[in-house]
């Protein structure tokens, strides 16, 4: 390392300047931090951080490959005790599962009502994958239903599948999600009516729930009531409360 001789005056000057810059930068950092902590919120998160979620969505969503499959496992590795988490949208005591029909709102505004029997007639796809909760835990779980892709094909929803988002809402409007179309048409996204080879339990979303392996658990809406399609972001329960809208991985 380079050695040199400096006058006391020069040492004092250099030290003072360095410390002054250090302290000033420290203050700038402190006040920027405070500014961020007190910033106006947008959907539960400080505006800058909400913008950061959107920027990350552009970056990581841009890397999303809808033909890439998530890791799957043999049925024997699926857990028997599937964790139940969250009951928003399942609390309506007047809900009648036996007379339930999926309300499909098409692009032109006309509505189609689809029964569980109708859905069960469509090609069935099973998927055993790592269900990942946003809280941090994961479980290998086994689900069965019709892929959204097959559903689109059967009901001629090509116009709908060209929209930017699909929106899903529980019958009581207590829980709702918005999904970008590339994730929706990923081959493992299913309208699910079976868990562990048997009909979905009520607390897991009977008669029909969304299982979408390329998204975190918050997007796997239980008890689908209405499905619609839109070019603007459908309302989404947890992103309204500070979470990332995209929640994809």
């Amino acid at each position, binding site marked *: 390392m*380079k050695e040199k001789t400096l006058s006391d005056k020069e040492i004092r000057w250099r030290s003072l300047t360095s*410390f002054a810059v250090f302290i000033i930068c420290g203050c700038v950092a402190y006040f920027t*931090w405070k500014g961020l902590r007190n910033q106006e919120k947008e959907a539960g998160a400080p505006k800058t*951080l909400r913008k*950061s979620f959107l920027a990350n969505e552009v970056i990581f969503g841009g890397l999303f490959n809808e033909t890439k499959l998530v890791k799957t496992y043999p049925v024997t590795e699926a857990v028997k005790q599937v964790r139940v988490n969250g009951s928003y949208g399942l609390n309506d005591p007047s809900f009648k599962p036996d007379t339930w029909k999926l309300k499909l709102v098409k692009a032109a505004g006309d509505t189609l009502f689809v029964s569980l029997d109708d859905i069960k007639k469509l090609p069935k796809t099973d998927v055993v994958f790592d269900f990942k909760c*946003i809280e*941090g835990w994961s479980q290998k779980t086994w689900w069965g239903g019709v892929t959204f892709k097959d559903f689109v094909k059967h009901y001629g929803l090509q116009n709908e599948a060209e929209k930017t988002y699909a929106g899903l809402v529980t019958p009581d409007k207590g829980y709702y999600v918005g999904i970008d179309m590339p994730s929706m048409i990923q081959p493992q996204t299913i309208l699910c009516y079976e868990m562990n080879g048997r009909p979905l339990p009520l607390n897991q979303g009977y008669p029909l729930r969304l299982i979408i392996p390329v998204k975190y658990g918050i997007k796997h809406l239980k008890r689908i009531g209405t499905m619609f399609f839109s070019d603007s972001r459908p309302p989404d329960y947890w992103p309204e409360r*500070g979470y990332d809208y995209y929640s994809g991985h």
Partner: protein
Amino acid sequence: MKKVVSKHPLAVRWFHWVNFPVLAVMIWSGLLIYWANDVYAIKYGGKDFIKFFPKGFYEALHIPFRLAEGMAYHFFFMWLFFINGLLYVLYTIFSGEWRYLLPQKKSWREAWLVVLHDLRIRKVKPPQTKYNAAQRIAYTSIIVMGLGSVITGLAIYQPVTFSFFTTICGGYEAAHLEHFILTIGYCLFFLVHLAQVIFAGWRNFQSMITGFEIIKPTAETTDSSPSAETNTSRS
């Protein structure tokens, strides 16, 4: 007139001081996230020996029920951490600073002698350039750990898009554990680093702000006056 040695280039000082608050925010926001599924503990005989973390710890730091907030901060500051770290690594390579930093063949044995000297067991201080052998190992390891946090972090954040990372980490749950262990590592590193900086004294500490250190005009080698092994001309 005093003799001074140019110890820390401006770039090194910037990267060092930027990293400090950024990493602190990453660890704090990481704690807000971890709380939501705080499964780790060191167990002994089937019981929790050390629980990560006790309820009182969370409450004292106002951690509970802030998962969304934690993620919002984590996924913004991760960019600052990554870019600052990347620029530091690139600088270290292209400036030649890596010669002071990377462990040498003899560093592994010498580091042990440094530890003995630091504990006042051994009187003789091993010769060194800017950093002693233990520092070379520590300051290089911390870069490897930083890279580890980025890889395990991406394996958790984007396990499908970055499935390659998730696989090399040993799976989604393994990536979580490794990410956590690295973070505990940073905390332990910080405690040792803080202690060593205090023991090294003011003249050494201020060199990380001013860039230079005044050489005490005595023949005795104190722990803050370096002996140059090579003559490199740099500003």
